[in-house]
């Protein structure tokens, strides 16, 4: 580890904290449906969309209607992308004459982008036409992100409203978030990325002859526009197979820093927005503090492992950090930080290959996802996942002191606790269940590239990434088979919507309750005691169930690595 590495990490968290309140303020304006300076430009688009679609933006929707409309919209988007991917060979901008995607791959990809996972079972530059990238995928990068933030708004309203039946209007939330936040930031970021070297062209490739006279074809395309929203919307689906490790997606250490900030800035801003929505910004800072503690601990472990390097290679005479799968312009520190950030959020973009991390360095991204990606988390999904843990935390605190638990002025009762547990239980159930099945079926065992415990880690990582809607991979796994495409497609769908529906039910139930003012006997949910309790609940409820699987995978791998045992 170096001073330079730690300076980077500290600077990153400093800038992120500085961005939290401005982003939170902007999000709060959208949460309340207030007019922003951008309305002058984009307001007509918004009202035009409402008129064409027959939407009354002021119609209040019950949690059921909010949920049904959200699911139907996402299903329509998914069908749209499925058709484009299947039919890309008859559509324009297919200069490389790629075939249509096979059914299982198109299904997997459509689910993957709809659920904000962006698991990539395909290699972009050798499978997808430019039209498929733009029209089929970029649109999901916006709308799955907007859906996530809209859902977080709905839950905030559940906490903030008193004896109300409505949670807001899904269409209005989704449209405003897209038009006044995601699109304008993406426009600015995309152009900045181009200035730094990210290509943006409709040409599919450029042919060159190298200095030694070898022909080299460079895949190109409209990369910058996808790259900007890929990070901002915590989607993570890269234009190229190597994702943000590819120099065209992430050309410099500066773009790398910007990409990491983009991943977390909306998620951290939403914690502030939550505090403001419930009338006490300290509530938001308390949540962010708990998240930050876990994030920094993860970075410390991952960075120290990667900087220390792989003893197997040291033994062969190679000095220094673990550089397998890493880019020189980033080095160990920026790669480790990126890995932790991208899995703390549900982004899944990678600037280094997680499969080639040291055993414990690779454990941290895996564990981050298994916690449910609530350490800041994906846009919207992180905060609504975390608030479910907060409900369980006040419940546990209530049990200890023998009082009805309250959180931000709402009594937490049996219904909310049951629904929260239901939502959180989806993760271990599906991740461990599907990993277990795949570890015995021949079709599952055909997947891993690596042998020994690391092969098991590859399977575990895939289902963890799928259910948690992350999308990063231990990419050695050959996942573009009907078996894995199908299983992971189902896993991603369950991981997204089987958390969302109970979560919206909680929101509906909370909105209907009356306000319960805090008394001297209420458990304070702003101080260090609360932050400690939150961290404890997340680690115990979210993490403990996965420890045996981690022992079989990365921990066994680590012990083998120290002994120099190879597979």
């Amino acid at each position, binding site marked *: 580890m170096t001073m*330079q590495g730690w300076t980077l990490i500290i600077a990153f968290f400093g800038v992120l904290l500085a961005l939290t309140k401005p982003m939170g303020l902007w999000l709060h304006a959208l949460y309340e449906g207030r007019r922003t300076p951008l309305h002058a430009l984009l307001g007509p688009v918004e009202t035009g*969309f409402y008129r*064409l679609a027959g*939407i009354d933006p002021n119609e209040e929707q019950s949690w*059921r209607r909010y949920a*049904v*409309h959200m699911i139907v919209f996402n299903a*329509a988007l998914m069908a749209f992308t499925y058709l484009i991917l299947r039919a890309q060979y008859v559509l324009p901008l297919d200069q490389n004459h790629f075939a249509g995607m096979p059914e299982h791959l198109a299904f997997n990809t459509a689910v993957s982008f709809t659920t904000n996972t962006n698991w990539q079972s395909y*290699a972009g530059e050798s499978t997808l036409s430019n039209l498929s990238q*733009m029209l089929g995928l970029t*649109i999901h990068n*916006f709308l799955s992100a907007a859906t996530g933030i809209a859902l977080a708004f709905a839950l905030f309203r559940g906490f903030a409203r008193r004896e109300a039946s409505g949670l807001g209007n899904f*269409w209005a939330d989704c449209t405003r978030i*897209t038009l006044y936040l995601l699109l304008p930031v993406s*426009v600015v970021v995309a152009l900045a990325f*181009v*200035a730094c*070297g990210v*290509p*943006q*062209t409709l040409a599919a490739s*450029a042919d*060159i*002859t*190298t*200095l*030694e006279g070898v022909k*080299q074809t*460079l895949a*190109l395309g*409209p990369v*910058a526009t996808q790259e900007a929203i890929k990070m901002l919307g915590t989607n993570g689906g890269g234009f*190229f*197979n190597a994702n943000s*490790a*590819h*120099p065209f997606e992430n*050309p410099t*250490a500066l773009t790398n820093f910007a990409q990491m900030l983009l991943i977390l800035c909306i998620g951290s801003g939403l914690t502030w927005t939550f505090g403001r929505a419930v009338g006490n910004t300290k509530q938001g800072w308390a949540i962010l503090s708990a998240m930050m503690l876990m994030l920094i601990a993860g970075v410390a472990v991952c960075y120290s492992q990667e900087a220390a390097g792989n003893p*197997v*290679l040291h033994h*062969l005479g*190679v*000095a220094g950090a*673990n*550089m*397998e*799968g*890493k*880019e*020189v*312009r980033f080095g160990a520190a920026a790669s480790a930080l990126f890995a932790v950030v991208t899995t703390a959020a549900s982004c899944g973009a990678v600037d*280094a290959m997680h499969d080639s991390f*040291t055993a414990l360095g*690779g454990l941290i991204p895996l564990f981050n996802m298994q916690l449910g990606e609530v350490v800041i988390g994906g846009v919207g999904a992180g905060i609504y996942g975390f608030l479910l843990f907060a409900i369980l935390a006040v419940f546990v605190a209530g049990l200890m002191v023998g009082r009805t638990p309250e959180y931000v002025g709402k009594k937490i009762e049996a219904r909310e606790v049951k629904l929260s547990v239901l939502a959180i239980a989806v993760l271990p159930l599906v991740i461990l269940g599907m990993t277990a099945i795949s570890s015995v079926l021949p079709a599952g065992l055909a997947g891993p590239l*690596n042998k020994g415990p*690391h092969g098991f880690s590859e399977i575990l990582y895939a289902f963890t990434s799928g259910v948690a809607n992350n999308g990063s991979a231990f990419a*050695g796994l050959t996942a573009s088979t009907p078996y894995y495409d199908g299983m992971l497609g189902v896993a991603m769908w369950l991981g997204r919507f089987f958390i969302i529906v109970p979560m919206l039910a909680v929101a509906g139930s909370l909105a209907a309750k009356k306000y319960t003012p805090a008394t001297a006997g209420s458990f304070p949910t702003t101080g260090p005691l609360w932050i400690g309790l939150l961290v404890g609940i997340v680690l115990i409820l979210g993490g403990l169930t996965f420890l045996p699987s981690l022992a079989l995978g990365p921990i066994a791998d680590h012990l083998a690595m120290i002994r120099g045992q*190879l*597979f």
Partner: protein
Amino acid sequence: MAKDFTTSLRPALTLTAGFALLLGIGYPLAITGVAQAVFPHQANGSLVTDRAGKAIGSELIGQTFASDRYFHPRPSAAGKGYDGTASSGSNYGPTSQPLADRVKGDVTKLSAEAPGRAIPADLATASGSGLDPDISPDAAFFQVDRVAKARGLGVDAVRQLVRRSIDAPAIAFLGDRHVNVLALNRALDAMGHPAP
């Protein structure tokens, strides 16, 4: 519930179409237009041309160098090596036998070049993209003796050239210092070939 479903259809279908036009067509095409006008070099892949105007590479994408007269890049897992249409890392885990075998082979070759010296990590490991255009300054200095000998140049002159070719990130702590292999090799060619 049924009413919730029926009322959702028109907005769902209309907004799918509307957003597809705005976000899937309008946004990328508009940015492409601006990017091509304002940053044509970067927008088209930061290509490097020789004096005749022929494209010989990209500033950002590594390429294969096999001759002793050139500095070598890192091992690559992209296709058969530096395949610009098949970016990929090796994805070998830390306890992978194939990884150890590959590294052992590279170490044997590299040790012959500079006996007794520790091998810089990046020179014996494959990058994440397989297209890494850079090597570490250590990895460049490691190769100086070989390149100087093959070209009949003074070791100090080549070392000077490497020193001048080191790039740092825009803000020093954001990433690691590195040397762009293509730029270094072009500078090397520009030094000329003194008679042996």
